[in-house]
């Protein structure tokens, strides 16, 4: 059937992937953070030289220590142990936060019921959760998982609840009129609409998770980056403390640039970017 309105269209579907300026795009992506890191290292080195103290080792010493723990086979297993604990705890926190956040955003009764628990969870320091979980669970995998989940879930639940309340009511009505099933509503409406909030919550939750996992590993584990940090601290090896901290930073950077930003680009690929 031909339509009488064939000439309405003023725009064509956008084409992606033009190869022009690929080098410039790469530089735009990598350049600024690289400059930031180099500048930070340079400032640290200036400070180390100025203070000339064994308590503030220079960049070469920290680099050498990092190379030593990487080459003697210590780095990767310890990071893997910590990552596993963070991943499991974060997954539990994410599931709890998604359920609680959806309920709080959709139902005022659920919001009133869960609000005290979330607010208390927000005010309890990660250190307290770490200590309590060490006491409750001892040296077991449950210890870091529960501590990370309890620390990260409240803030993430609040973010999800805010996101739920921000979802366009017009779209919810549209889905109702066209009789979308619950599963379709969740997969095609709620989760994509909440994606920016979920990613933002995930970033914040991950940062809290790293802080708590270190405490848990210091107090109650015999492996992991936190345990190694504690060992380095006990032997007054400041370069090792900084090298292990640097390893944390590298992992965070890989997660941020390799995972979170890729997910963000995927979930927001439909957005039209302003040209001004």
């Amino acid at each position, binding site marked *: 059937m031909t*339509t009488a309105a*064939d000439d*309405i269209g*003023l*725009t*064509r579907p956008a084409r992606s992937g033009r190869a022009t300026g690929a080098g410039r795009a790469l530089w735009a992506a990598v350049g600024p953070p690289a400059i930031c890191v180099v500048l930070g290292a340079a400032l640290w080195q200036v400070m180390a030289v100025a203070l000339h103290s064994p308590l503030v080792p220079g960049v070469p010493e920290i680099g050498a220590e990092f190379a030593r723990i990487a080459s003697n086979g210590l780095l990767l297993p310890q990071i893997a142990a910590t990552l596993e604990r963070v991943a499991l705890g974060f997954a539990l926190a994410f599931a709890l936060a998604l359920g609680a956040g959806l309920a709080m955003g959709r139902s005022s009764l659920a919001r009133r019921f869960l609000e005290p628990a979330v607010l208390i969870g927000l005010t309890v320091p990660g250190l307290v959760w770490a200590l309590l979980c060490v006491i409750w669970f001892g040296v077991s995998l449950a210890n870091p998982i529960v501590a990370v989940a309890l620390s990260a879930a409240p803030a993430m639940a609040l973010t999800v609840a805010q996101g739920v309340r921000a979802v366009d009511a017009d779209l919810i009505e549209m889905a*109702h*009129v066209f009789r979308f099933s619950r599963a379709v509503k969740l997969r095609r409406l709620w989760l994509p*609409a909440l994606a920016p909030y979920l990613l933002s919550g995930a970033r914040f939750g991950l940062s809290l998770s790293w802080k708590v996992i270190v405490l848990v590993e210091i107090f109650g584990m015999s492996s992991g980056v936190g345990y190694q940090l504690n060992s380095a601290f006990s032997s007054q090896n400041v370069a090792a403390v900084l090298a292990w901290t640097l390893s944390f930073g590298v992992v965070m950077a890989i997660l941020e640039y390799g995972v979170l930003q890729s997910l963000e680009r995927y979930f927001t690929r439909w957005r039209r970017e302003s040209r001004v």
Partner: protein
Amino acid sequence: MSVALTLERIDKTFVRPESGAREAVLRNFNLRVAPGELVAVIGPSGSGKSTLLNLIAGLTLPDAGTIDVRRTDGATPRLSVVFQQPRLLDWLDVETNVQLAADAAGVPRDAVARALEDVGLTAYAKAFPSMLSGGQRQRVAVARAFVIEPDIVLFDEPFSALDEITARKLRLLTQELWQTRPRTGILVTHNTQEAAFLADRVVTLGSGATRVVSDIAIDVTRPRSAEDLRLFEIHRRLLAGLT
């Protein structure tokens, strides 16, 4: 399948959140739409036009009265709405937006391609809504409304957010779709020309507790031309009824 729509003795009252005062929008309201008939409802703001559509669409419930939508074969009637704004899922491409409605209604998948062809958007099937013009987005909404082979179509000021040239073309498109596959429908609009051009009957609501001011049949066969002098005359009568 032809479907009649009957609203009997409908009451609907809203509570103003700022003052707590109750405001009757519809009182003892009656309307019957015959199978295959497209009825336009016009009237001033606050006369209950959109409330009427929300009640029929099941987005709100009446305080009293009955809404009867009946298929002769006893099956649940399919209802679709063309909203004032397209209400598309921006993160899904055009095809998937239409596909979701088709899947929910159990319509075969090849209907989606036909629906997009009907509204002239085949080339844009994989485009995201943000890449389309306002008129194109509204055409996607029209495709979504018609892909499910609805028994009843509700139009809630469907072209009021568009410029007049685009709106005019979409009215022609709607007329073509209606002529090919007539449904039972209600068109809520502020535009008396649009009402006269598209509808079989125009009901004018008054302000306050809603009452029907006029009910004018439009006895002009389709396809209609916007320049048809008979439509101008009906338009003039509708305007006179509103003032």
